């Protein structure tokens, strides 16, 4: 009984203050401000570190001091507020950056939204650059991100749902979709999957992705994370769902198909044959980055009979004085490459350039001159790496590069048969994979996607022709 009594605000201001401060664990950044309003004492409580002090001054303290109206509700009229009665609500409201207004002899409190929204300006995406097309990207605020989508999708069909997850983190998650396009069963399954993370501490998008994944042990990303609003909009129009996490500058798109990872928003912005060429190039890059090192090893160790004679002697010349098995060579070179890549990502950009030079000159040419790794192997691994970097989505690019390792191993033990076996396993896995219940790899609708379905204007009918 005493417990339930303590839950609600009492009329005793000092008692209330004491309990709230206790609930907030007497944190040092909890500030209180004492004011008087028509002779009654008023206490403002807010977290110094999260609130917009200017807004408190302007919209709360100012009107109260001027005593513009009889009631507090009318005085706060310009500001959005809600009324609270329990300590629990009040303390979580403070934690969200609101200001609590308590009055003497009153058992209700006003919670006024004063969260300072300091956010990054909308900039160009660093990770998904394009030469043609929009140069805006998502920022660390879900509302800004949704506004970026709304700007492109001015339709009432565009629906946003908010959910709060994580018992400690209390992070807002926004699920956006086009009501008319989305598959209701898929949407339902996405929502029920998100329920699973209710009790976890949600911090980053990866956790959302994990909750959405059907096959957590698969090397392939089953939802696409993008920083580009145009990509998100394109997927929304295709009936997919876009999920934002507050404080994360990326959108998680699900369900997604494998081919979407090979697509760049630029594609839809260029002529069909340019589009076709680059899409094919990326498909080739995918095949190369997965199989090329394995293929080279298999040829080197088992199947040199398939080489034309001139190629054979070129190869023989380059591997002549290398003391290692091609498998060891490949692994060494792959590791060197990953090291260089990782080092240049971590370092500030000025130093990263140095790493590039060191990588190219020192390691690239010196390693060949010292006969540790053959010339051809350097070429093979470089081509593999470059083709994996062609893939527009970083997540997929990395998993592709890593997927070549098992094939390298199989090729070193079994030759071509090993590669065939490995590719069989990969293909089976890809075909079996689903993303939010939908097939990950479908028969590609290449021609439908390239051919513009818009009605053609005949030359004579073109109204612009007269101008």
């Amino acid at each position, binding site marked *: 009984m005493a417990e339930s009594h303590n839950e609600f605000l009492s009329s005793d201001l000092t008692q209330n203050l004491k309990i709230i401060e206790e609930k907030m664990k007497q944190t040092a950044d909890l500030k209180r401000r004492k004011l008087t309003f028509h002779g009654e004492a008023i206490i403002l409580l807010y977290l110094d570190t999260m609130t917009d002090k200017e807004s408190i001054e302007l919209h709360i303290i100012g009107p109260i001091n001027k005593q513009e109206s009889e009631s507090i509700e009318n005085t706060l009229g310009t500001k959005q507020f809600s009324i609270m009665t329990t300590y629990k609500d009040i303390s979580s409201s403070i934690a969200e950056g609101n200001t609590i207004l308590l009055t003497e002899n009153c058992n209700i409190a006003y919670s006024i939204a004063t969260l300072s929204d300091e956010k990054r300006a909308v900039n160009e995406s660093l990770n998904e650059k394009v030469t043609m097309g929009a140069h805006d990207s998502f920022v660390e605020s879900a509302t800004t991100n949704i506004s970026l989508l709304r700007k492109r999708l001015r339709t009432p069909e565009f629906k946003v749902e908010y959910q709060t997850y994580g018992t400690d983190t209390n992070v807002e998650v926004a699920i956006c979709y086009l009501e008319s396009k989305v598959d209701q069963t898929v949407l339902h399954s996405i929502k029920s999957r998100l329920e699973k993370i209710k009790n976890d501490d949600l911090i980053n998008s990866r956790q959302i992705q994990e909750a959405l994944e059907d096959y957590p042990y698969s090397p392939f990303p089953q939802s696409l994370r993008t920083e580009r609003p145009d990509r998100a909009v394109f997927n929304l129009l295709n009936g997919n769902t876009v999920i934002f996490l507050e404080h994360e500058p990326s959108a998680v798109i699900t369900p997604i198909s494998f081919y979407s990872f090979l697509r760049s928003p630029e594609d839809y912005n260029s002529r069909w044959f340019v589009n076709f060429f680059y899409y094919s190039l990326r498909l080739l890059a995918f095949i190369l980055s997965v199989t090329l090192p394995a293929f080279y090893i298999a040829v*080197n160790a*088992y199947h*040199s009979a398939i080489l034309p*004679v001139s190629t*054979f002697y070129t*190869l023989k*010349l380059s*591997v002549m004085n290398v003391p290692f*098995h091609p498998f060891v060579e490949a692994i060494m070179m792959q590791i060197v490459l990953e090291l260089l890549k990782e080092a240049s990502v971590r370092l500030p950009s000025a130093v990263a350039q140095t790493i590039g030079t060191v990588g190219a000159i020192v390691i690239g040419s010196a390693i060949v001159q010292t006969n540790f790794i053959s010339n051809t192997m350097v070429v093979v691994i470089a081509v593999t790496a470059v083709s994996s970097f062609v893939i527009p989505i970083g997540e997929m690019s990395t998993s592709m590069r890593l997927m070549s390792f098992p094939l390298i191993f199989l090729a070193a033990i079994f030759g071509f048969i090993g590669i065939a076996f490995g590719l069989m396993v990969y293909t089976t896995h890809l075909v079996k994979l689903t993303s939010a219940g939908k097939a990950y790899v479908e028969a590609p609708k290449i021609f439908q996607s390239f051919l513009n379905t818009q009605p053609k204007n005949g030359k004579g009918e073109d109204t612009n022709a007269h101008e």
Partner: protein
Amino acid sequence: MKTNSRKIIILLFIFPLLTGCWDQKLIVDQEVMNGVSLDLEDNKVKSTIVVLNIIPKGTNFFDFKNQMSSATGYSLEDTYRELRTYYTGPLTASKSRIILLGESFAKKNLNAYLDFFYRVPDPYLGSKVAIVKGVEASELLSTKEIGTNPVAFGLYEIIEAAEDNSTVTKGTLNTLFTYFNEEGKDFILPILEKNEGNILVSGAGLMSHNGYSGQMISLKECSLLLLIMDNYGELVDLETYMNDKKKLNNQVSYRILKAKRELDLKKDASGKPMVDIHLDLKVLLHQYPITEKISSKQIKKLEETISRDLTKKSQSIMKKTQKANSDVLGIGRELKETDPAAWKALDWRETYPTIKINTRVEVAIEKTGILK
């Protein structure tokens, strides 16, 4: 249950590792033979192989050396076993360019000997096969280089050029195999000769019964033979004396633009097969010693001269094939296809030299080059 599956997984990993890489053939270790020559010596086979060793001399520079070795034995495998011991790595024929046959060896039933190259997948079926006349086949391989190419590559290219110039039919070890197993059709092989240190294709050797007949068609007649065989290369150039006098600059030469051959298999009164070959040529005149304008009358005359000359030549070529008992045209196969009963009744090896082969060549000059 869990421990069982774990055991199985461990075994799956261990087995491939324990078996080792028994079939691994690293490029570095491989010794690749480029040329093979086969001779007959005191009723034994003498095989000679040449292995190209590349010697790196710093980046982008290298030198090569031919390592040649021979062995004799009663079979190819016999010699091969000995040859293997001369080299530092596993010996492979996967990059062999050329197989040279000594004249005496070529007269054996090649199918039975070359079988060695067909059974295992290792040897390169694109290698060229040629007969060496005059010297031992192994002697040709002892040349270090032809032009700037190592010997085996040089020989390969010489033969390839001869094929393009319509001296011999296009052929490799692979096509040879199909000929071996085809009744009623013989084939020709290039003949290599050494002339004052230079190696050249001197003609086409007529094969009979899967062996060299000893007869050859000379370089000048080869192109016509190929036209009759309807199996010519990219470039066919022929020439004819303008009149009977064989004097300086008295030849008209022409390039074949279009050739059409008709082979008509008939039966004579006694039921014996006889063949009419009709060759229709469209040519481009590319050498005519008199640089004045050629009138249409002259062209008519030229056409007649050339046609008469080629008809005569083709008759003699066909005589030669009959003498060598080498049915390079595949008349036997034609008969087998069109009249199996007659084919069965005949012993083709006996019949071919005796049948009547009529040839008729008709030439039409289509172009005279830039000059009229």
